[in-house]
């Protein structure tokens, strides 16, 4: 059962109004939850059905009818008396007396307003056109206008939307403040490299969303690259199973230098040498955003620890250096994860922490 806040997020996603972090959250939710995908698909279908409703035209005479009615529209309708004349006269006299008395009292008691300065810009700016865009509230005038049917090709929107929906949230993520890099650009002398280097100097923790083609080897390839950089990677069995099936998994990496991150990302974009054969990299693009408090809370939940423990391990390992763990997106308390948590090194100032989500597709 999806939470209300998730439902709201997903309806806003359908409306296409999400930006930045919210959009990213929606993508993450869609990646992780079949229920959310089903929900969005249905909303998209319904929206498409409304959009596909046939359009009709009014008859050409409609315009002429409106024009013919225009002079009438400027006339003021006679006001019917609400009470019988005999009562009306008596009540009117009483009302006039009361109003006269109130008016005299007000004139004597209330101080006079200062004359309005016509050149006062504040007064002018405050309400320059008090009558502007007022909505008329008169009752509807019934007319007899037959409405003909005008043929229109109904677009087959629904199937397209249904087909497109999965591709849509597997697209590289976009964000107002995020940086996105294509792995292919990072493997060569490209401005993307210097942009990445500059970006890595801005924060001490990042959230990376990586999209990759699914060949069942994404985690294996990641581990090989980590090995090259002397980073031990602990792998939760469920995360391994996810990776093998082409499903999302999360990697938390800490105590890693900026240069090493650049090197890892660069290496991930290179061909995968599998013995004598060389396979083109499956890693496509990475969206880099700062590691928000929401990310922190989410990661803590996945690892089953609190924010303090994330910052500083209760019993830090004596050894220094980087460490990483791969977990499923639903979190894990497996023996492997517990072992990793018990052997985490203390945080080294000046190094980076990364929460990496890998989305094979």
């Amino acid at each position, binding site marked *: 059962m999806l939470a209300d806040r998730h*439902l*709201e997020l997903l*309806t*806003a996603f*359908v*409306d296409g*109004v999400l930006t930045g972090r919210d959009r990213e959250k929606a993508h993450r939710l869609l990646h992780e939850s079949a229920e959310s995908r089903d929900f969005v698909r*249905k*909303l998209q279908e*319904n*929206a498409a*059905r*409304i*959009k596909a*409703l*046939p*359009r*009709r*035209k*009014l008859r050409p005479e*409609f*315009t*002429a*009818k*409106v*024009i013919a*009615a*225009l002079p009438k*529209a*400027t006339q003021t309708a006679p006001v019917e008396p609400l009470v019988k004349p005999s009562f009306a006269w008596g009540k009117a006299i009483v009302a006039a007396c009361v109003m006269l008395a109130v008016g005299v009292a007000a004139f004597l008691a209330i101080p006079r307003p200062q004359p309005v300065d016509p050149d006062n810009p504040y007064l002018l700016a405050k309400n320059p*056109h008090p*009558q*502007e*865009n*007022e*909505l*008329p*509230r*008169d009752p*509807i*005038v*019934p*007319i*007899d*206008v037959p*409405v003909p*049917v*005008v*043929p*229109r*090709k*109904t677009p087959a929107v629904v199937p397209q939307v249904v087909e497109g929906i999965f591709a849509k949230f597997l697209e590289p993520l976009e964000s107002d403040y995020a940086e996105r890099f294509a792995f292919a650009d990072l493997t060569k002398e490209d401005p993307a490299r210097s942009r990445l280097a500059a970006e890595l100097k801005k924060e001490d923790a990042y959230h990376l969303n990586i999209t990759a083609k699914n060949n069942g080897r994404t985690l294996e390839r990641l581990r090989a690259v980590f090995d090259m950089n002397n980073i031990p990677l602990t792998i939760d069995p469920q995360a391994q199973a996810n990776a093998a099936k082409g499903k999302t998994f999360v990697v938390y990496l800490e105590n890693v230098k900026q240069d090493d991150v650049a090197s890892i990302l660069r290496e991930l974009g290179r061909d995968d040498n599998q013995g004598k054969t060389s396979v083109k990299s499956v890693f496509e693009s990475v969206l880099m955003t700062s590691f928000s408090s929401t990310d922190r809370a989410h990661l803590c939940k996945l690892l089953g620890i609190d924010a303090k423990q994330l910052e500083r391990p209760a019993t830090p390992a004596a050894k220094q250096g980087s460490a990483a763990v791969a977990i499923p997106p639903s979190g894990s308390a497996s023996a492997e994860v517990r072992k990793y948590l018990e052997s985490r090194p203390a945080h080294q100032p000046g190094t980076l922490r990364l929460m990496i989500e890998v989305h094979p597709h």
Partner: protein
Amino acid sequence: MPRDDRDLIAASLTGDSASFGELVRRYQDRLFNSVLRVCDTAEDAADVVQEAFLHAYQALASFKGDSQFFTWIYRIAFNTAITLKRKQKSAMRLNAGELGTFEPADPSDAADPGHAMQSAEDERKVHEALQRLSPEHRAVLVLKDMDDMKYEEMAEVLQVPIGTIRSRLHRARLELKEILEKAS
């Protein structure tokens, strides 16, 4: 070259009814199609559209162009349609006979009666589902999904804050989903 809305409005204000007629021609069908889904019947929708243009003509001198003429006329029409719907609420008039006024609009339907029936059936289902929503919820769905309006434009048309548009759309989509699921 088609004349700008502002030119037509200026000419209308000098008494040139033909210019106002051009404005009517320009927007009547788009307005009618949107209002049609807020009202029960095509006849009601036509009444609302005509009334909206008459009101707009009366108030044209007060239109200063801060918003687009189209947004303004939409605002008048939707306000009128929602008011009408509220009045009719006590006597729901939705029945199969009235939906009969909505003929299949796709020319290919003539060659493919099966498809025509399916289209008409789907239209009937969606139209009925929309009619079961409140006028406010119906209005946001029509403006968003039929007219591709942004939240800002919808807020201007319906004269409510953007946050209200967002929450109304959310509730409207959930409600419509439930109604359509039950119907199928």
